[in-house]
């Protein structure tokens, strides 16, 4: 690809050991430019350790990291300007006001006074913190602190935004608005790397990496991951007649990969693509004289995927 780098983040064999414990185990992670990549895994899976190494905050025991083809340790200066980072723990100054915090980091990033004023106004607008400029950061609510952190990470207009559990401890409505911020940023061309252990919000990512016990178990789109669990889309069929006869009919259909009895009246079928398979099934069953009570796609949730793939 000419003139455009494929990967915003790329790690090879990234490993971190802490006193005999392997927190991150030979991780090959690739975040493509322009995507929202989610790192999903339970607490203790090694997500934060991975993020900290990528940011250059923690020296890896082994392996390489490239951020837009720069080494975060050897070319820290460059990487810090490309990358915006929002740590898991609130890391701004409780005893400075919202404005003072942003103004401090703005000048650290070399923004002039007028640039800072413009940018801070813009960001406060974006994260909906207008009117709180002169409140002490320490007095803000949890959700407001998170929004302030996000604004601070965005001050220098980074190409890559790394968010470590940005919605941890945030109530569901606010979590939704956070994801709308992320989507907006993404539409403006920002690449996002987000860690989370909320399965529902992981659905918002373009691609997901499932992490468990320091390893990357699977990488795919949310839909791809779900399909991977069963080897395709899952469809539930409840016929009016006996199951055995129906199974026999289904086994004769080439686009049905697998048929499974859920209980005495339900069947689960695995097909390549539910959208085309459902009409085809109706036709085939009708032709075979099978009466159908219901036929629909089963919405596999990521939790099942996670348990299925990581366990």
């Amino acid at each position, binding site marked *: 690809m000419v003139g455009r780098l494929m990967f915003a983040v790329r790690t090879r064999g990234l490993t971190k050991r802490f006193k005999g414990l392997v927190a991150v185990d030979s991780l090959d992670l690739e975040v493509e430019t322009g995507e929202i990549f989610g790192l999903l895994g339970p607490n203790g899976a090694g997500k934060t350790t991975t993020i900290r190494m990528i940011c250059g905050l923690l020296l890896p025991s082994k392996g390489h990291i490239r951020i837009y083809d720069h080494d975060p340790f050897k070319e820290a200066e460059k990487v810090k300007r490309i990358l915006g980072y929002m*740590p898991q723990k609130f890391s701004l100054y409780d005893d400075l006001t919202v404005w003072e915090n942003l103004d401090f980091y703005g000048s650290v990033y070399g923004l002039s006074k007028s640039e800072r004023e413009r940018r801070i106004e813009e960001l406060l607008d974006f994260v909906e913190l207008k009117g709180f400029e002169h409140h002490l950061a320490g007095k803000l609510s949890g959700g407001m602190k998170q929004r302030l952190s996000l604004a601070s990470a965005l001050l220098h207009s980074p190409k890559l935004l790394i968010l470590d559990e940005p919605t941890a401890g945030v109530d569901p409505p606010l979590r939704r608005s956070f994801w709308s911020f992320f989507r907006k940023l993404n539409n403006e061309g920002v690449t996002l790397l987000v860690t989370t252990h909320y399965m529902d919000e992981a659905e918002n990512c373009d691609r997901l990496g499932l992490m468990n016990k320091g390893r990357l178990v699977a990488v795919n789109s949310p839909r791809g991951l779900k399909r991977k669990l069963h080897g395709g889309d899952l469809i539930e069929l409840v016929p009016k007649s006996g199951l055995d006869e129906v199974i026999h009919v289904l086994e004769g259909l080439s686009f049905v990969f697998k048929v499974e009895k859920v209980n005495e009246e339900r069947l689960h079928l695995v097909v390549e693509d539910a959208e085309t398979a459902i009409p085809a099934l109706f036709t085939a069953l009708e032709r075979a004289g099978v009466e159908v009570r219901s036929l629909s796609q089963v919405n596999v949730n990521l939790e099942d995927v996670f348990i299925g793939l990581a366990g």
Partner: protein
Amino acid sequence: MAALVIKELKQLRRDVRTLAMVIGMPIIVMVLFGWGYGGGMGHIPIAVANLDPEGMLSWSFVNIVEQSKAFHVVAYVDSLEKAEDMVQEGQVLGAIVIPEGFTQSYLVDGAFVILVTDESMPSISRSLKDHTAALLTSADATLSAEVGVQGPRLSLILTTLYGPELKRIDSFMPVVLGMILLLLPATLISVAIAREREKGTFEALVMSPLRRWEIIVGKLLAYGFVTFLDLLLTLAIALYGFKVLMRCSLIDILAVSTLFLVGSLGLGLAASVVSRNQLQAYQISTFIFIPALLFCGAFAPVEILTPSSRIVAYINPLYYFVDALQSLMVRGQPLYMMLWDLTPLFIYVVVTLTCSLLLFKARVD
């Protein structure tokens, strides 16, 4: 409530650094204290001038001084001026001068002995006076028995350098200033950095484009400014509030104090580099403070500590600072005569700052 006690002890046991401090502090302080102060008062090095060399009793008296456990006669001179010079130059801490016609006067109705002391070193001066007074009482008994007269016939005359009698605040001013300039900057800056680590703000700070040295120098300048104001405040109270003696220019005091202050900031930085939280940073600063105070000459002059333990004083920046300020404020010596004190203080600044720069990691591991 028992549960609370058990919980606290458990937590303490798991904080290895704090635990080390809790156990190590009394041990190290007591070992240092016993080492330095345990060997009796030690001999005070003095010079003796016998200006009555023909007299029989003068030599008996010299003999008694030599036998004394309190003094160690390191030089014999032949005039009061030379004795004073030796004290002034610091070759001895005091001098006993037996005046001309000592034997004659003693036989007639009574003689006196001159004690030369350096008032800029109040603790030595006091201990010299006490010991000499005790010595005279026993010498009187010996001499009067020797010649068969009725005592007491000996009296003491004091000649003080930088005296007469300084107020206590004058001679202790350098120590007090040193204590403030050691403890305040060191704890302030070490807690300031440890707080960033503890609260997590450090993570965002090191992710900014600020370089390592910029973070260190930035903190240094901020707290340097604040503690410099403290220095001015302390001096203002001392000079205008209590009219403390100052036989030098204010600029000289500020120069030496600022040097020491920067060293203390460096010490605090180094302490913060090895601490994980504010408590530890504070403890390390205090931990250094106690031995520094024990071995700076404030409680007892370093010269009379157990000789091997004096090394602690010689690596103690507070010792050099106190000595330099005494030379300035009480003795009125010019700054260039203080290289002996200023060189170690320079080394102190360079070492602490270099160490903290080298050890300071812009990471979170």
